[in-house]
C-alpha cells in the first residue's frame, strides 16, 4: 500500500469518488463559516474600517495561486520521472484553478488598494510578481491547448512548468532590484501574518483551510473529468 497505487486511474477514480462528497461538504462548510465569521463577526479595523475584511478572500486566494503552481510543478516532475498519467492530468486540471485564484487575488487586491493606497494598481514588487505569475499560467494553458497528441502535450507542458518555475522565482527576486528607487516597497507590501490581530487571525486560518479544501476538491473533480474524457476518446478510437 503506497501512494503510487493511485497512479492507476481505476484506483484513483474509486478513491476520489469515495472522498469527494466529504471534501466538498468540508470545503463549503469551512469557507462559509470562515467568510461569515470574517465578514460579520469581526470588528472593523480602527484605521482601515471595514475594507480590511477583504483580507479573508485576498490572502487565501493569493496563497492558493502560488500553491497551485507548486502542485503543478510536483505533478510535472512525477510525470517526467515516473510517467503516471493521472499526475499529468492533475497538473492540467490545476492550471485553470490556479489562474482563477491569481485573478481573484489581483482583483481583490485592486479593490482593497483603491481606498487604502489610493490606487488600483502600483508597480509594487508583490503586485508585479503576481502579474508575472498570471502570464506564466497563460503560457502553460495555451501550450496544453495547442498540442494534439496527449503524451507529447504532457511532456512539453511539464518541462515548461519546470523551466517556468525557475524563471518565475528569478523574476520574483529580479523585481526587487528593478523597483528599487521607484517605490518604497516595504510600506505597501505589509507582512500580513505578523501584523494581524488574533481577532482576524483565526477566521483567516479557517478561510485558508477552506480554500485549500476547495482547491483539492476542484482539482479532483477536474482530474476525474479529464480521465473520463480520455476514456471516452479511447472508446471512440476503438469503435472507428
Amino acid at each position: 500500500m503506497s501512494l503510487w497505487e493511485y497512479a492507476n486511474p481505476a484506483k484513483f477514480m474509486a478513491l476520489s469518488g469515495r472522498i469527494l462528497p466529504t471534501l466538498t461538504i468540508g470545503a463549503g462548510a469551512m469557507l462559509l463559516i470562515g467568510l461569515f465569521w470574517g465578514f460579520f463577526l469581526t470588528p472593523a479595523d480602527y484605521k482601515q474600517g471595514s475594507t480590511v475584511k477583504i483580507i479573508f478572500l485576498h490572502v487565501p486566494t493569493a496563497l492558493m495561486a502560488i500553491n497551485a503552481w507548486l502542485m503543478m510543478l510536483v505533478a510535472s516532475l512525477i510525470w517526467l520521472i515516473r510517467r503516471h498519467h493521472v499526475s499529468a492530468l492533475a497538473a492540467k486540471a490545476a492550471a485553470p484553478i490556479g489562474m482563477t485564484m491569481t485573478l481573484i487575488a489581483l482583483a481583490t487586491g485592486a479593490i482593497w488598494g483603491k481606498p487604502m493606497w489610493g490606487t488600483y494598481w502600483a508597480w509594487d514588487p508583490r503586485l508585479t510578481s503576481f502579474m508575472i505569475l498570471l502570464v506564466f499560467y497563460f503560457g502553460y494553458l495555451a501550450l496544453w491547448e495547442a498540442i494534439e497528441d496527449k503524451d507529447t502535450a504532457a511532456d512539453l507542458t511539464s518541462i515548461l512548468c519546470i523551466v517556468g518555475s525557475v524563471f518565475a522565482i528569478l523574476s520574483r527576486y529580479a523585481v526587487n532590484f528593478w523597483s528599487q528607487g521607484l517605490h518604497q516597497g516595504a510600506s505597501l507590501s505589509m507582512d500580513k501574518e505578523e501584523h494581524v490581530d488574533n481577532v482576524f487571525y483565526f477566521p483567516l486560518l479557517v478561510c485558508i483551510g477552506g480554500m485549500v479544501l476547495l482547491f483539492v476538491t476542484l482539482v479532483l473533480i477536474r482530474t476525474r473529468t479529464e480521465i473520463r474524457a480520455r476514456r471516452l476518446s479511447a472508446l471512440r478510437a476503438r469503435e472507428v
Partner: protein
Amino acid sequence: MKPLILRDLKLAFRSGGGFALTLAFFLIVVMFVPFGVGANLDLLARIAPGILWIGALLSCLLSLDRIFQLDWEDGTLEALATSPIPLSGIAIAKATAHWITTGLPITLAAIPLGYLLNLPQQSYLWLFASLALGTPALSFIGAFGAAITVGIKRGGLLLSLLVLPLYIPTLMLGAQVASTGTQNPIQLLALVASISLLCIATIPFACAIALRANLR
C-alpha cells in the same frame, strides 16, 4: 558541433540576408519610439536603455522560429538526433549560431541606435556590456521555446507567449544596468551574466527533453 554551427551560419547568411533583417527590424522599433512618445530629448535619454533592451528582445524573438523549424520540416532534425552528438549538444550549437546571427549584431547595433535616442554619454559602455552579457540568455531561452513549439503548426504567436515571460528577469536586470539612476551597475551586470550562465548550463537539457518529446 563546430560543423553544425558553421552550417547554420552559412544557411543564415546565404538565405534571407542573415542578420540584416533582424537589424532592420531593430532600427524600425527604435525609430518608432520618438514617433510614439515625441522627440523630447530629455525623455528619450531617460527611456533609451529600456527601449533598446525591449527592441533587442523583440528582434531576437523574430528569428526564433528559424532555429529548429526548417530542420524539423525537412527531416534534418531526425537525422541530427541519430548522430553521435547528444540532443543537448545540438541545442547548444543551434543556440550559439542564433546568438552569432542575432545577439551579437544587436549588441553592436545598439551603440549607434543609442545615439539616435540621445542615450547619456556614460551609459554606452554599460548598455554594451549588459547586452553582450545578456543576449546569450535570450538566445538559449529562445531555443527552448523554439524546441517546445517546433511541432506546432502556426506556433509563432504561442512561441512569443511562452518565451516572453521567461525573458522578464533578463530584461529587468539588463535594462537597469544601463539606466542613469542605478547606484551599483556592476552588481546588476554580474546578475545578468549569471542568468546567461545559468541558461547556457541548464537550458540545453530542457531543449533536449522537448525535442525528444516532439520527435517521438
